[in-house]
């Protein structure tokens, strides 16, 4: 009856199941195959950057032999790459900050305030999922031009914040709703207003959700292609995806250099993501257990 026996039993069973000889190796086998499929194309890009063009032509699926580092050092010493890298960081940083701040405030209202029109507000943002940036791109370009923000990083940051809001709100609302009512009542008894509750309880409790949506917004901005394509015309203002395209068309015969440039431009997002991977999965789970 005690909790000790309750929990001891299943762990024993689980352990018994895990010791089944074919159980674990098969899991690893499947996992290895999946990983190989996921990673192979990325490895092709990264390793291709360490090869020369003649190696790539003679043996397209081979390994670097010998390893060539010039492709990478050329990219890393080029001011163009670093300018575009900085632009990407700037755009992604402010997109994330703006989107998460605005979405958290709006989600709090939708999740915790009782008022008619609340569902309408949620539906408004949910409807945003149906407004792809591609549909709006021409009038959006005209709007940005009217605001005088063409060829300006803010001209992509503001629309990106707006277009990232739906996903962020939709992830954050159930998350904020999951914060137990008891906490809010306890805070109210202790004299906290709804806003006090927001700053003292909701913000810290929703950090995992905030980080999750923040990373999604960051990656979305880092990878975004079509909006910068329309708004940014000067290669000094390019973000990395445009830089990759421009580089690929300027050096279309220099496949190795293209691969090196490409792999260097994806590393920051990969690094950022792997640092916070645990937070992403945890963040989507909700705050109840935290």
């Amino acid at each position, binding site marked *: 009856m005690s909790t000790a026996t309750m929990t001891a039993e299943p762990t024993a069973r689980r352990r018994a199941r895990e010791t089944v000889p074919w159980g674990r190796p098969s899991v690893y086998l499947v996992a290895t195959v*999946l990983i190989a499929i*996921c990673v192979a194309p*990325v490895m092709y890009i990264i390793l291709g950057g360490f090869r020369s063009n003649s190696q790539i032509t003679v043996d397209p699926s081979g390994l670097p032999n010998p390893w060539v580092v010039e492709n990478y050092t050329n990219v890393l010493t080029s001011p163009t790459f670093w300018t575009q890298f900085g632009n990407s960081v700037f755009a992604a940083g402010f997109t994330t900050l703006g989107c998460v701040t605005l979405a958290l405030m709006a989600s709090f209202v939708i999740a915790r305030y009782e*008022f008619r029109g609340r569902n309408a507000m949620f539906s408004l943002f949910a409807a945003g999922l149906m407004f792809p940036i591609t*549909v709006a791109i021409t009038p959006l370009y005209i709007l940005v031009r009217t605001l005088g923000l063409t060829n300006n990083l803010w001209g992509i940051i503001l629309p990106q914040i707006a277009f990232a809001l739906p996903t962020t709100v939709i992830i954050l609302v159930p998350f904020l709703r999951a914060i137990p009512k008891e906490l809010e009542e306890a805070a109210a008894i202790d004299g906290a207003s709804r806003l006090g509750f927001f700053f003292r309880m909701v913000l810290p409790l929703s950090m995992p959700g905030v980080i999750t949506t923040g990373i999604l917004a960051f990656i979305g901005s880092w990878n975004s*292609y079509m909006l910068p394509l329309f708004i940014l015309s000067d290669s000094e203002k390019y973000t990395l995806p445009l830089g990759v395209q421009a580089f690929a068309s300027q050096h279309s015969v220099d496949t190795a250099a293209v691969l090196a440039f490409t792999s260097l431009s994806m590393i920051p997002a990969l690094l950022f993501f792997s640092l916070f991977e645990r937070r992403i999965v945890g963040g989507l789970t909700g705050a109840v257990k935290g």
Partner: protein
Amino acid sequence: MNESTALPVDRSEGTTQARGSATTALPRAARPRRKTDWRKRLEILVLAGPAIVMFVGFVIFPVFMAAYYGFFRWKGFGPPTDFIGIQNYITIFSDEKFLAAVQHNAFIVIASLLIQGPVAIGFALLLNQKIKGRSLIRVLIFVPYVIAEVIVGTGWGLMLQSAGAVNDFLGKIGLDALQTDWISDPNIAIWTLMVIISWKYIGFAVILMLAGMQGIPDELYEAAAVDGASFWQIQKSITLPLLGPTIRIWAFLSIIGSLQLFDLVYIIWGQYISDTAGTSTMATYMVREGRLAGNYGYGNAVAVVIFLISLVIALAYQRFVLRRDTEGALTEKPGKETGR
């Protein structure tokens, strides 16, 4: 000029909407004191206002502008003057290229659901177990999702060339028979696209499924284990039913994403080959016939059609499939199921 005057109007609409919803809440508010009502209204306005203004200004408003431009023959310079009514729409629906693109989109929607759904659930089941190196495996599986479409397009484009790495590798392992023209053969290209899409987006599906699985209370698994349920019985009777809301939300995002597909096709198949290879989508059609051809009015009309198709599908989905989830059942559901 037209836009600069319209924008402020739109902004005020955004704020009145927030204010309006607060006003309508008055009769329902439980608190008797008027002071709290004012305060609550103000809080709602201050908290939700900025997001709504941004959203309406940069997302909703441009779509209405697209609807407006769609009635004109317009080259994108100066204000549109050549009003042609619904002529653009008649042209769209009598253009075989557009109808073909719609079919490709439909195929991509269905194939994405059928391929990615089961695979993602399988991945997530696998990764939800306590095995060594789990977090490393997770990171690696999410790698494709994190990479930009431009990079995916560039990389896969190079690999799938006739003399590229994929055909070379197939030759090396003795599968010469499978070597083919992956990108331009119209019988194969759409499947190639499906492979690339699945590869690219499976990571996001897995993140969602894993998150859903971790939201399922451990007590249920413990109880099932006490009852002597097998691994597969547990997955079938606990994990899958409780994963329902997550699966439905993922399917929604997947459908909408498939309808809007642009970057990958545009980068790999370019603006012209996608037609003959049979991978053109509504969005690539829009950019080709609108922006590249300089017919901004026509392009905007195509945009409106894409939007309406997405809207109808999404509303139907929300009404018939998502409804129970968006009504706050996400967090209550596990509790209900435990009662069984």
